[in-house]
């Protein structure tokens, strides 16, 4: 009897939490599909009376969303590419080579993990000003040229590759960077994918840094575009705002739903290492 009560309490807690999480997302979707006349009603409608697909077209044309979209894709892709190159190279040296100063480099990587951008942004802003890079794609990309998190994650994966494989590869004259490319990367694929996904979500969603360094509409990314759209439109067309929100959240959510097992893996690798 007691056990049954516990079971019911457990289910109830989980269901309440599920409702609190799902409800805002449901409301986002429903509001995006409603015609304006159904937005400001005394009693909210749980289902749209009719589906207003035009909301998406109107929202898309309400701000330079096409441009923001292209900027977001370009900036995120450039950051990922740079991080993959720099982090893989560093992780390779840290995991597979002995050299004077290795401990120092590893310490520097782990230390950088805990320096958040919210502390460094003032100084980085002034650095970019000196470079004359403010308000350019370079300002959006350069500060994220490497990832301490990625370097650390990849190093752990590369460490797990047995030395015997490297010895065998050496006999086939596959050494150095060729070994990294032909053996380490394919063998560590799940970790590489997990890193790419975590970085993709972080930089696609990033609002803080683009807010600091962009002033021109032509180089703004989606999150900034949406925030500007909201501040112009607020108190008016919530259905258009919700439609625009879907432009920003949609792609990243689709990627997440398709690849969740890799996300979970990224936690197993970071959260459990103790």
């Amino acid at each position, binding site marked *: 009897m007691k056990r049954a009560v516990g079971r019911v309490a457990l289910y109830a807690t989980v269901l309440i939490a599920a409702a609190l999480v799902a409800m805002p997302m449901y409301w986002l979707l429903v509001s995006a599909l409603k015609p304006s006349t159904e937005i400001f009603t005394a009693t909210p409608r749980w289902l749209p009376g009719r589906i207003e697909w035009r909301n998406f077209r109107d929202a898309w044309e309400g701000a330079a969303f096409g441009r923001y979209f292209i900027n977001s894709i370009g900036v995120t892709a450039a950051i990922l590419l740079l991080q993959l190159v720099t982090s893989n190279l560093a992780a390779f040296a840290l995991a597979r080579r002995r050299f004077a100063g290795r401990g120092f480099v590893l310490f520097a990587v782990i230390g950088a993990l805990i320096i958040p951008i919210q502390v460094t942004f003032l100084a980085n802003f002034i650095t970019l000003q000196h470079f004359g890079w403010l308000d350019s794609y370079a300002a959006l990309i350069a500060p994220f040229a490497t990832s301490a998190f990625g370097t650390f994650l990849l190093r752990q994966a590369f460490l797990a590759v047995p030395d015997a494989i490297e010895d065998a590869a050496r006999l086939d004259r596959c050494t150095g960077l060729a070994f990294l490319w032909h053996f380490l990367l394919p063998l560590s694929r799940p970790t590489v994918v997990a890193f790419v996904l975590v970085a993709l979500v972080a930089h696609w969603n990033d609002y803080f840094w683009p807010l600091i360094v962009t002033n021109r509409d032509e180089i703004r990314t989606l999150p900034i575009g949406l925030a500007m759209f909201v501040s112009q439109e607020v108190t008016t067309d919530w259905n258009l705002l919700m439609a625009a929100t879907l432009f*920003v959240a949609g792609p990243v959510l689709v990627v997440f*739903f398709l690849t969740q097992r890799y996300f979970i893996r990224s936690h197993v690798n970071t959260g459990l290492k103790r």
Partner: protein
Amino acid sequence: MKELASTNSAAMRVRAWLLPYLCVLPALGALALWNYYPLAFLMDLSLYRLSASSPAPSWIGLANYRRLFESPLFWQVLSNTAIYTGLAVPLSVGLGLALAVALDQRLKGARLLRTLFYTPVVMPTVAGATIALWIFNTDYGLANYLLGLVGLPPIGWLTDSGYALWTLIAVGVWKTFGYFMLVYLAALQSLPQSVLEAARLDGARPWDRFWSITWPLLRPTTWFAIVIALILSFQAFDFVNIMTQGGPSNATNLLVFYVYQNGFQYFQLGFAAAIAVIMFVLVYGLSGLISLWYSR
């Protein structure tokens, strides 16, 4: 022929010796320029007056810090941040733990629920903020409608200085608890099953089993989760900037927003740097204390 081979192998040795340095150079250079140099630069900057009105920096010693400590707004911001952190950290970590334990019981639909709870984590903060602005809209928002259903008067969720900070905390927890749920789930699944099984056979009740076995075993995970939650909560900015701009009457002005406000709205870079230094010291002082307490 022999000579050629030996110079060849000497060149190869040099290349092999050089390779690791060339490999770490790009990453190390980027970390030095964008992570470490700014820390030093920030501390230096905090000793200068550098603002739109006096663009030539002048050294003023600790005057920025003195001004900061004498400013009532700074203490209000600090108290807001303390309330935010003091609630957001235990709520998001606690909720994450509770749901992880629940989903670990082979509950029906556990996989689907895990996905659902993690969705806010990957959702852009701007998207979450826009939805929250709509739901907590005073006149037409869903939240006030639901209050009305149970006979309560509407609340100015974001416009009343008595409620705005609580609303931001709720939205912040909504966004982050899924991360801690996944961290705990991963930890729970790696616990030694034999110990739990032995306790079950001894007839220990679920509640006792949890407190006397699972909870102590999760100690390192809890430490990790609390430190991460602490760092995350000190970084809270996006929701503040989009939803309240620190208002009404600074009720939701948190540390990062305060730095941003002074640096990029009032253009007092030296003063803003002093706040950022204090923030850094606070976050890592607290994390250090927690770590010390945990490693007793």
